[in-house]
């Protein structure tokens, strides 16, 4: 079946511009996550959505970052007034649920969006 998709695959933007990154999760997955991965670094958690619950925004690095999830499916990560340090690969993942110890928590990742801020 279809996996997690992300668009665009690459985005080059000028410092100070706003960007929107899109994620389409696997159909039927209730949980959606955004991560950031800088070159040679591990995954940095940004935000996650679970069904209709309030999202966990604890990983967002600044108020320039925000995310929405419409209709419990597609999500958009928005970065306002981009800075050079925002350059990274932004990864989206989805899972069937987030209940601890329950099956189906494993996350399935999209291919990522490589963001370059010049």
């Amino acid at each position, binding site marked *: 079946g279809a996996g997690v998709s992300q668009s665009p695959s690459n985005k080059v933007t000028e410092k100070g511009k706003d960007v929107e990154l899109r994620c389409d999760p696997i159909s039927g997955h209730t949980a959606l996550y955004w991560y950031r991965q800088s070159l040679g670094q591990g995954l940095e958690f940004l935000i996650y959505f679970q069904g209709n619950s309030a999202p966990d925004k604890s990983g967002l690095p600044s108020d320039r970052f925000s995310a929405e999830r419409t209709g419990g499916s597609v999500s958009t990560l928005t970065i306002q007034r981009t800075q050079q340090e925002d350059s990274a690969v932004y990864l989206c993942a989805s899972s069937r649920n987030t209940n*601890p110890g329950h099956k189906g928590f494993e*996350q399935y990742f999209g291919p990522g969006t490589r963001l370059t801020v010049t």
Partner: protein
Amino acid sequence: EDQVTQSPEALRLQEGESSSLNCSYTVSGLRGLFWYRQDPGKGPEFLFTLYSAGEEKEKERLKATLTKKESFLHITAPKPEDSATYLCAVRYFSGGYNKLIFGAGTRLAVHP
């Protein structure tokens, strides 16, 4: 401090030379440990979930094990196509919230 540490950072093996990757964690309230494989330019690919000490999972040349403080990913007779970065992640309960931390990964290179 809650932490996940992977070692070594990089590992070079000859084809057929078995070895192990380590993922140690210092969290309490473990709710699951996950192994992923990541190829260059791609998102991580799920491999295994382990939930309790003593649990083992196998897939082809890979075997994951879990103790109360660490997990090992054993690679038996690796092939060049096993070259990738291997990530582990730990799910735990803290302060009333479920949290997930990824390690920095081990870059594995298998040479013919």
